[in-house]
């Protein structure tokens, strides 16, 4: 007989039966938000210190390609993991999309706040400069935020 991982949603009272533990994708709690925020703050500092020059040297279309391609890869990876666990493409995509949206929001909030505080971005800069900075910062901070947020939840268990 197959063994399923039983997952309880404490907020709504729902019960899910997964093939293996994907609680790190299903739930986004306060601790996940804090870790994502911490990862994005450190990521932004790393971006400002080491990578800002490199990303400014890239042209906009390359940056768009990196940003959207990275996001798509991230989504496909998490959706595939969720799909194997729940056995439904629709449910898997929904879980991955929802989880990614929350982490992405945290990255945006953390990144924009720190970029404003550091004075790299002000309200008077052109949108071109803002978009370029944010996209570069998000690419760098995702390398720190994803392991901190998803990875920690996965190894520690929810």
């Amino acid at each position: 007989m197959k063994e399923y991982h039983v997952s309880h949603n404490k907020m709504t009272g729902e019960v899910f039966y997964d093939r293996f533990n994907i609680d790190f994708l299903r739930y986004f709690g306060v601790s996940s938000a804090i870790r994502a925020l911490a990862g994005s703050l450190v990521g932004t500092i790393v971006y400002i210190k080491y990578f800002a020059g490199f990303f400014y040297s890239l042209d906009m279309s390359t940056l768009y390609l990196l940003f959207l391609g990275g996001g798509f890869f991230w989504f496909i990876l998490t959706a595939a993991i969720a799909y194997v666990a729940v056995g439904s493409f629709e449910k898997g995509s929904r879980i991955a999309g929802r989880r990614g949206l929350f982490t992405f929001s945290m990255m945006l909030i953390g990144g924009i706040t720190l970029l404003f505080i550091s004075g790299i971005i002000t309200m008077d800069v052109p949108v071109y400069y803002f978009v370029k900075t944010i996209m570069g910062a998000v690419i760098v901070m995702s390398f720190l935020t994803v392991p901190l947020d998803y990875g920690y939840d996965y190894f520690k268990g929810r």
Partner: protein
Amino acid sequence: MGREGSRQLISELKDIKSREKVIKKELDEIKVKEEVLLTKLNKDLGQAELKSRQSYLQVMHFTFNDFAQATIGSCVFSFAPFLDTDPWTYLPEINTAFLFFIHMFFVLCVFVALNYRFRDKFTLDFWFLRLLAKRMFYLYFSVMMVMLLVIVLIHRITYATTLLDAARNLLAMQVVGLFGAITFSFLRK
């Protein structure tokens, strides 16, 4: 006490018995009424519970249909800035802090309308609010995606625009989109 006394007692007893009958009849009628009322009450309570469960299930999942409704609603309402260019002429004169305040006020209005859409009443419930806040977050970002596209399409945000102007234009447009999304969410109800 003679015969007269016992006759009086018997007539009093008869009187009491007849009154007892009347009271019993009234009591029976009251019991029937009580049963009818209890049945009605149970039915109403059951319906209320069913309704709250339905609204809970509806608000819990932001389905593709909900997303489509939100985006179509915001698209339809965003025809206004396409057709009427007047607001863009007096928008720069409005103070940014005031614009932000107005934006937040309308977001609050949309939140209350969203609560009414699911619960059919304006009173707030703390437990329900948590789910509603999550839904509001989804709705806000869905509308923002559409509004960003629209605003770029009508050249109110270009690469040369300053961040302040872009943010002001987006704040103004976002409210219109949110109104569209919430209006369309009532259509399928």
